[in-house]
Structure formats: structure tokens, C-alpha cells
């Protein structure tokens, strides 16, 4: 068991050290995230009054997460393609599931560093006030992070050799994550004061669509937790299929 544990940490530390030395992917992620926030801020200038600000701000945040997250996940297996590193990983006395969990954690860490930098920028750009509390904000961001990374890590290994590698990973991950976006958007909107945190009344948002549901912030968190649990477990179980030759 300790062998597995050592291997697990070895992979994570290897990924982080490589990234710290190369300093390629993380800066690109951060700049991409900032650009997305910036562009969406400019594009939403007319509608920024009142409730428009938080709505666009939340949209900008999740879009930035998704696309920068894709960058991180692509990196996590792209580097292994060179020098047959992937074969090396697979030949090591490690359970394939452990490889997945290690890569997952590495991606989550990268995305967390990204969040720490870009979220304050978005708060400033869209003039958002975290009325719901910073702890809750961190919780929502972590759950979203886990969701994006779990599916992305699984399919990143799958699409490595494809010609349209980046976009292919993109469409696969995005389509699976769409149902998570609904409660995630709701949760962030509630945290930024665009709708009351514990209430059934959503008339203030003038929306009769999917957002007018979840019922409460707790339900949104619960849902994201369930989503993450289902997909982390499913990806962990299916990872072995994806990396076999």
C-alpha cells in the first residue's frame, strides 16, 4: 500500500516540478483566463447595471475556468507522449487508477492556483461583492474545479494522438459538464448577491428558465457534490480502458 502511496505522490510532484521549471502552461492559463474575463467585461458593458454585472461576471468566471482548465488537462498527458513516458508510467508497479488520481490532483492544484489569481481579477472587473462569504465561494470553486478536472483528465489521455486534439478534448469535456454549470452558476450568483442565498423567490432575476430552480444554495452545493462524486468515481474506474494500447 505504501508503494502505491509513494507512486501517487511521485507523479504529482513530478508534474508540479516540471511545470515549475518549464513555466509554460500555468502562465498561459492565467493569461487566457484574464483575457476571457476582460473580453467579456468589454462585451457586456451596456448591460452592466444592476443585476447584469453579476450575471456576466459569473458567466465569465465559468467560461474562463472551463477553457483554462482544458489547457491544464491537455498538458497533463501531452508531455507524456514524448520519450515514451506514458509507457514508463504504465510499466511502473502502479495501479492505473492511482495514475488517474495523481493526474487528477495535479490538475486540481493547477486549476486552484489559476483560480487564486483570476477570481480576484474577475471580482474587480465586474465589481462583484462576495456577500455570501469567502468560505462558500472557495467551496463552490473547489467543487467546480474537481468536476472540470475529473472529466478532463480522463479524456485528455484518450484524445492524445488525434489531430484536432485540443478542440476534441474541448467538445467532449464541455458537453459532459453542461449539467454541472446550471447549479454552479446558481451558486455563484447567489454568492455575489444577485439572488438571495436561501430563498425560493427568483423573480428578481427575470428568468423562467433553468436557473429559477435549484431551490437553495445548499441544494446547488449538494448537486455539485453529487456530480463530482459520480464523475470522479466513473472516470477512475474507466481510466484503465483509455490508456491501454
Amino acid at each position: 500500500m505504501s508503494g502505491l502511496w509513494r507512486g501517487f505522490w511521485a507523479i504529482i510532484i513530478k508534474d508540479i516540478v516540471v511545470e515549475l521549471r518549464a513555466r509554460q502552461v500555468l502562465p498561459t492559463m492565467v493569461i487566457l483566463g484574464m483575457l476571457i474575463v476582460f473580453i467579456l467585461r468589454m462585451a457586456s458593458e451596456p448591460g452592466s447595471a444592476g443585476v447584469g454585472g453579476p450575471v456576466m461576471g459569473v458567466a465569465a468566471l465559468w467560461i474562463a475556468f472551463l477553457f483554462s482548465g482544458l489547457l491544464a488537462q491537455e498538458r497533463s498527458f501531452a508531455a507524456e507522449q514524448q520519450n515514451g513516458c506514458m509507457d514508463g508510467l504504465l510499466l511502473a508497479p502502479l495501479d492505473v487508477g492511482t495514475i488517474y488520481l495523481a493526474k487528477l490532483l495535479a490538475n486540481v492544484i493547477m486549476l486552484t492556483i489559476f483560480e487564486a489569481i483570476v477570481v480576484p481579477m474577475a471580482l474587480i472587473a465586474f465589481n462583484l461583492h462576495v456577500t455570501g462569504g469567502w468560505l462558500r465561494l472557495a467551496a463552490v470553486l473547489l467543487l467546480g474545479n474537481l468536476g472540470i478536472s475529473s472529466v478532463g483528465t480522463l479524456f485528455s489521455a484518450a484524445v492524445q494522438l488525434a489531430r484536432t486534439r485540443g478542440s476534441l478534448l474541448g467538445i467532449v469535456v464541455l458537453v459532459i459538464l453542461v449539467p454541472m454549470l446550471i447549479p454552479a452558476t446558481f451558486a455563484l450568483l447567489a454568492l455575489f448577491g444577485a439572488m438571495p442565498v436561501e430563498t425560493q423567490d427568483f423573480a428578481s432575476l427575470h428568468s423562467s428558465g433553468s436557473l429559477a430552480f435549484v431551490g437553495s444554495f445548499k441544494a446547488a452545493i449538494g448537486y455539485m457534490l453529487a456530480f463530482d462524486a459520480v464523475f470522479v468515481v466513473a472516470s477512475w474506474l474507466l481510466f484503465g480502458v483509455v490508456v491501454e494500447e
Partner: protein
Amino acid sequence: MRRLLFSLAIVLLVASTWIGLTQGQIAPLQRNILYAHVPNAVCALLCFVVLLVASAGCLVTGRQGWDLLAAASAEAGFVFATLLNATGMLFSRAEWNVWWTPSPRLVTSAILWFLYAVYLILRVSLPGSPYRRARICAVFGIIAFLDVPLVFVSARFIPDIHRPSFSFDSPWQTAAMMLGMAGTALLAAGLIWLRTSLLRDSGELERELLQ
């Protein structure tokens, strides 16, 4: 045999449309699109279930037949999902004057369509051996199927204002709807069957050519 299946399916569909439009007409004229809409919706979901079973079979047994079934049902399901969304949009435009709105069932239908589309693109874009491609597509099929109930739950609480409570006023209407479902289901089965054998034959042809 297949020809019989398709003829039967088309006969049932014509019968359904005829009965639905003449004897079982629903009050505002445009609502009769439901006779085309509901069977397509059911079949789109059925094809997804077939996709799940085929994906699981492909992963468990590793036999190519399951993979071909998955590909065929994904294509047929894509057709049905497209029609589901198209008729849904026409219905929504006629009934509430908007082409689309993020109400739960509409969101579910849209995601269903996207899942099929991504599956088909994945099938085409993955390099490597057909075996590997089959396995990865099967993984996506299973993950996608896990996605659908999550969509459902994530949209559960909404008071679904965008669906009329469709009650069958007369036995004619019930008949028309049931005939439509049966016809579309037979059509789906036939399409999947035909497409599977087509894929099998073209695979065989490729193998012959390579020899």
C-alpha cells in the same frame, strides 16, 4: 425481412398521422405536431439506452459487434434527437412565440443532441486502431449516459411551464399517439439494424481490400 419492418413502420406512421390529423385532432391546430414530436423524443432516448448497452457490451466482451451497434444507434439517435429539437422548436414557436427557452426538458433535449453529436465526432476523429477507438467511444458512451440523469435532476425543481398537460381526450388520440410511437420505434429498430449490417459489410470489405 428488413423491408417488411420498414414497410410496417411507414404504414404505422402514416396511419398515426392520418388518424391524428383527422379523427384525433387536438384543439389548436399547431399542437398536432405533438404526434410527430413525442415518438421522436421517446426514440431518441431509447437509442441512447441502446448506445449504453452496446458500449457496456463492447467494454466487457471486446467483440466488434457491440461497437458497430453503438455506432449505428448513435447515428440513428442523432437523427431522432435532431428531429426532437426541431419539432420542439416549431411547437414552441407556434405555442408560445419563442423558438427556444432554457426550460428543463428543452435543456435535456439539447444536451441529448450534443451528446450524440460529440459521440459521432469522437468516432470520426480518434486515430489509432479501430479497437482502441471502439473502447474510447464506449467509455464516452457510458459517461454520457451517466450525464443524462444528472441533467434531469439538475432541472428537476423547475415548475415546468413549458409543457402542456396533454391528456388524451378521445381514444382516437391515444390510438394516433400509440401508432406513432410504435411506428417510430420500428423505424428506429430498422435503421439501427440496417446501419449495423452496413458497418459490418464495409468493415469486411476493407479487410478484403487490405488482403
